[in-house]
């Protein structure tokens, strides 16, 4: 199984992932970007969930009064 890269050249996936020896730098960059984006998406959704939870509690205690 190969992959066609720039210029129509066919290389194997392992060659592709090796990035001609620069794998650590290239995938280290994209890996960190992906990790940071996923973390931020998780955190903003968590914040929304917590805020809504807080508001529901406030509302409930307000209704009972």
């Amino acid at each position, binding site marked *: 199984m190969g992959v066609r890269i720039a210029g129509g050249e066919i290389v194997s996936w392992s060659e592709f992932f090796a990035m001609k020896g620069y794998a650590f730098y290239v995938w280290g960059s994209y890996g960190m970007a992906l990790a940071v984006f996923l973390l931020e998406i998780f955190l903003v959704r968590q914040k929304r969930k917590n805020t809504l939870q*807080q508001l529901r509690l406030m509302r409930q205690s307000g209704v009972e009064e």
Partner: protein
Amino acid sequence: MVIHWFKYSAPTNFYRLAGKLIPWFAIPSAILFVVGLYIGFFVAPTDAVQSEAYRIIFIHVPASILSMFIYMVMAFYAALGLVFNTRLSSMMASALAPTGALFAFLALWTGALWGKPMWGAYWVWDARLTSELILLFLYLGFIALQASIDDPRRADRAGALLAIVGSVNVPIIYFSVKWWNTLHQGSTIKFTGSSMHIAMQEAMFITLAACWMYVVAVSLVRVRSIILERESKTQWVSELPEVKS
């Protein structure tokens, strides 16, 4: 058609508008990331000088540009809030800061991983790198300062002053490669004919657009939570369907 812009400066209306806008930025952002990185990795040719290491550019350049751009937008909103006392603009400034910090961090991280194979060092105290590091500290300072003040309106004003004073750093980052002898290269993209292969440019602009839409989507989600927190005692918040349920 008349658009009533001021209508959306009210947190109530903006909360609803932002909720509708989020998917229109989030979904195109994901699509543009796939397209941009596909072109970047499978269409753009190997660089003659930097071999495959140059492919870091498709995340490094968008992260760097946006780290500066987000700061200017944040300082602009903070200044609006300070001058016109508009609550929503201050909330937007607060919502942008964490994402800006994240992009400044990514610019430094991807830059370090690019610097190592090309310059032989992860870090040098060079004008471009140092001023970008200061940008990260400005974001963190803004967040920490706002977090340390209990009264939200006072926190807005203090943060705004820091953001405005700190904005002097952005042109320093931008022009650092011209003003000083730095290890960092000058701009590759020039208005009058740049030296880059067309597919490389396409991939970079597409990932830049993807990152920008990501920033908008994630900041809108964050600003909605900030609006709810700040307006928690109002009638309209307690009557929202998501709060009632």
